[in-house]
């Protein structure tokens, strides 16, 4: 009668485990299971309580209860009638599973309980039916033990079933985030369709307060969006044209139109659900150990029970047989490792589900366990500590001293703002990342960018434009020379430009109507909460290392700003993994934080790889733990949660094994020779049920985890001296001397390096050792984040944008001087 369900799965788990119906199905079965368990438990409790109460406390109840009632309930035949349904109806699942497991030669906890209750029941049956064959002092039945053990066991199972249903809830909470409806524009009409029917390329319309149905790219409108359900970041994010948006996030007050780029199972939310599901079924190494132990546990306990009986038989007081049997049964029952089976999985499921709500995606239980042991955190600079995109950081006007920056007198402000507008107007038409950064920076200062009357992009130089009737030049030295700009203030400007370059920024000159007026600096900027997160990590006793391709001076400046302990400077991208290994060889357990795509080898080399996800582009596959919000505070949460979870698991295993470790010798009667203390099988059963209960309650404490409330336990604030060192790369350049743009150390020879120094963009020559210069525009870029790269004469050159690469490809000689 079996019908075949064809379900397939691939070894990587890319199967259909993420779809929603699969989530509903097991829960329904669990609920049914809970219902039956409850029914069996009620029967067991109702029938056991009177037998238990009168058997245990009969003599104390004489004052309140007529003697006849007590006599009735302590009659062995009456007890037999009460307890038999408990044994066979309520205890059915326990016996069935237990005996079948024994037949399968894979005994587990139910086997122990089945053995124990069966022994008690058969013994009591003999007492009831044929007391004559037993010595007078051994004619006491143990029906109440049978009933109590089964009742408590069922209670424990019910707790467990509820707990498991509860952890299914963390998945359900995520599934419930799945959007239901979508408004899309198709064929000029706006349709209201099911969110599951949105296709890639559809234009989705979002009104105020609505939930976004799928992932996509904004094409129109702007609004602030609450992404907390995905990133854990409570601050809404402003989205405008060109920004990526994520399904399941909630729109604020604006209206948006966006083009769907990922739908169905490809959305960030679907991937998160899949990931959490896989993580929850994975096993922590600590659990594999527990599994191995429990495999030996059951046969071991049966052996102990047999020899307990033998020792009582040989050495015990009369009646030896009874004492022996009671002790053997007590051993079987108390040894039940029921709590062991749930000790680890329960904590793992709760904490991975919890982590997902804070924007921390833990890939496996192993990652959760390993993250706890990490003592050194390596942070990649670009994209991890910093935003990874260029921004306009400084504006220095000709005539001002370099440090004065923008703080000069207000009388000039109006004219300067007007000039900034002109600059933005000139740059507006350029697709170059530097130009875009400048336009954005000017807009952020509340200024408008007027439309340019004419515009000319000068490859390798900058732009020349006419804005509001004025000639505006924005670019490098070469451009200024070509256009015969009056360099009156050039000394001043060159000093400032040199300063910027030394700080790792890209200086850009501006001339208006043939006169040099300003130097702008564009650079990658530090994320606002990086310093705070780094301080929190150090507070937790972690060594924080920054890995960067910058030279020592630049790296030191950054290190001072964010407060890391140790800086490894001048590391080429391909050497990052080697630096991780070097730290591991120093005896550290290393967690590497980097951007998931470009740092993949380093992330893989580290004990735990943390990938910075950028909301829509979740590089889940490449790391052990993904920080969806992109903020380093997620790392702190991940570490805190890992520590809390592992602490919890150890406590659970302590509870599970602790009861057994103490209980077995006592049950065997080790205290008897000294104090005549024995463990009644019933007390043993209660202790066993209590161990399950403690584990469930303890694991549930993790639900209350709040990253903000974590107080680091270790205040070992070792005042480490800030320590800057160079990466151990072959061919690492001496500070201040640029290495060519080669990515391969063996290709770098002095000749090539010299040739590079002769390029037109001399101002940048002090910038980083492995940060390389785009030979076309002179922008300082990190090869790993480069938009394009080209091979020429055995050298690899990196470019900030495809535009620069195209220009280079057209005529390399022009840019290589």
């Amino acid at each position: 009668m079996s019908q075949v369900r064809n379900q397939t799965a691939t070894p990587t788990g890319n199967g259909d485990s993420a779809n929603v119906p699969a989530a509903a199905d097991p829960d329904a079965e669990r609920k049914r299971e809970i219902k039956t368990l409850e029914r069996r438990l009620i029967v067991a409790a109702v029938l056991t309580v009177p037998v238990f109460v009168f058997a245990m406390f009969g003599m104390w109840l004489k004052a309140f209860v007529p003697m006849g009632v007590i006599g009735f309930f302590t009659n062995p035949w009456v007890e037999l009638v009460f307890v038999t349904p408990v044994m066979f109806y309520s205890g059915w699942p326990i016996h069935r599973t237990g005996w079948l497991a024994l037949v399968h030669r894979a005994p587990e906890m139910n086997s122990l309980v089945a053995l124990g209750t069966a022994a008690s029941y058969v013994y009591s049956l003999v007492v009831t039916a044929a007391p004559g064959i037993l010595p007078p002092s051994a004619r006491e039945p143990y029906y109440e033990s049978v009933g109590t053990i089964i009742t408590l066991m069922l209670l424990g199972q019910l707790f467990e079933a509820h707990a498991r249903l509860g952890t299914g809830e963390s998945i359900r909470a995520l599934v419930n985030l799945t959007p239901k409806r979508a408004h899309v524009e198709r064929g000029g009409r706006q349709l209201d369709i099911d969110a599951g029917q949105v296709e890639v390329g559809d234009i989705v319309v979002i009104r105020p307060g609505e939930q976004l149905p799928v992932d996509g790219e904004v094409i129109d409108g702007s609004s602030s969006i609450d992404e907390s359900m995905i990133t854990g970041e409570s601050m809404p994010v402003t989205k405008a044209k060109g920004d990526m948006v994520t399904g399941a996030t909630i729109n604020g007050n604006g209206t948006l139109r966006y083009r769907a780029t990922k739908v169905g199972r490809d959305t960030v939310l679907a991937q998160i659900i899949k990931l959490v599901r896989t993580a929850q079924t994975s096993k922590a190494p600590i659990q594999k150990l527990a599994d191995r132990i429990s495999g030996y546990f059951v046969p071991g306990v049966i052996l102990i029970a047999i020899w307990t009986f033998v020792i009582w038989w040989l050495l015990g007081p009369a009646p030896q047989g009874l004492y022996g049997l009671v002790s053997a049964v007590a051993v079987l029952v108390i040894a039940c490792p029921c709590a062991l089976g749930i000790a680890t999985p329960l904590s793992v499921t709760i904490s991975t589900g919890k982590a997902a709500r804070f924007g921390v995606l833990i890939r496996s239980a192993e990652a959760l366990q390993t993250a706890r042991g990490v003592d050194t955190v390596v942070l990649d600079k670009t994209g991890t500590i910093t935003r990874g995109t260029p921004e306009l950081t400084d504006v220095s006007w000709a005539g001002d001293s370099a440090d004065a920056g923008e703080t000069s007198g207000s009388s000039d402000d109006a004219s300067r703002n007007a000039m900034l507008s002109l600059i933005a107007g000139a740059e507006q038409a350029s697709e170059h990342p530097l130009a875009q950064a400048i336009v954005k920076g000017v807009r952020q200062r509340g200024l408008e960018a007027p439309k340019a009357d004419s515009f000319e992009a000068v490859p390798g130089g900058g732009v020349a434009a006419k804005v509001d009737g004025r000639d505006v030049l924005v670019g490098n030295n070469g451009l200024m020379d070509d256009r015969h700009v009056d360099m009156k203030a050039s000394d001043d400007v060159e000093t400032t430009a040199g300063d910027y370059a030394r700080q790792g920024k890209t200086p850009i000159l501006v001339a208006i109507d043939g006169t040099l007026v300003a130097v702008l600096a564009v650079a990658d900027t530090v994320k606002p909460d990086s310093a705070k997160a780094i301080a929190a990590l150090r507070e937790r006793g972690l060594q924080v290392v920054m890995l960067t391709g910058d030279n020592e001076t630049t790296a030191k400046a950054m290190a001072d700003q964010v407060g890391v302990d140790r800086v490894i400077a001048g590391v080429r991208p391909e050497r990052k993994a080697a630096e991780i290994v070097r730290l591991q060889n120093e005896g550290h357990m290393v967690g590497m934080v980097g951007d998931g795509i470009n740092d993949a080898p380093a992330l893989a080399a580290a004990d735990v790889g943390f990938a910075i996800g950028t909301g829509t582009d979740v590089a889940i596959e490449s790391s052990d733990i993904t920080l969806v919000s992109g903020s380093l505070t997620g790392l702190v949460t991940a570490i805190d949660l890992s520590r809390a979870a592992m602490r919890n698991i150890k406590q659970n295993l302590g509870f599970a094994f602790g009861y057994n470790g103490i209980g077995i010798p006592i049950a065997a009667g080790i205290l008897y020779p000294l104090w005549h203390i024995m463990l009644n099988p019933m007390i043993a059963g209660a202790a066993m049920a209590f161990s399950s209960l403690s584990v469930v309650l303890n694991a549930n404490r993790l639900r209350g985890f709040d990253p903000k409330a974590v107080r680091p336990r270790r205040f070992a604030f070792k005042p480490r001296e800030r320590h800057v060192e160079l990466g151990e790369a072959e061919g690492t350049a001496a500070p201040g001397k640029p290495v060519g743009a080669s990515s391969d150390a063996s290709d770098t020879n002095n000749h090539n390096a010299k040739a590079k120094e002769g390029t037109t963009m001399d101002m940048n020559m002090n910038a980083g050792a492995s940060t390389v210069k785009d030979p076309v525009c002179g922008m300082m870029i990190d090869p790993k984040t480069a938009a394009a790269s080209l091979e020429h004469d055995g050298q690899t050159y990196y470019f900030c944008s495809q535009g620069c690469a195209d220009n280079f490809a057209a005529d390399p000689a022009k840019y290589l001087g």
Partner: protein
Amino acid sequence: MFVNAAVVLAALVASVAIIWYFFAPRKAARAGREGEVQTARIVVKGGYTPQVVDVEAGTPVRLRFDRQEDGECSSHVVFSDLGIDRTLPAFETTDVEFTPSKPGDLPYACGMNMLHGMVHVLPKGAKGNG
């Protein structure tokens, strides 16, 4: 005195029997062939029968879990090394398919981690012991 000796002897025999019963090597079932796919039927009833299945690396494997019971415990089968967690509906046969890439052991368990089974992945072309 004679009774005591008998009890000790019985206990010894029982101990040896228990150790043999639980720790003796298990006979593995060899997965059969259905065209390109190695197939094995595994009965799920208080445990997995056969408990150990031999398969060959590099060829797709289809395990047909025939679940002849209901209840919570065996309602999932979890291959933690493969990241597979499959729901086994009661009284139905559910297929789990994967292709083992390299020789080794692939343990699996029920959702509550109480029932255990094992897939032995043998090198390509190797002969199983069952």
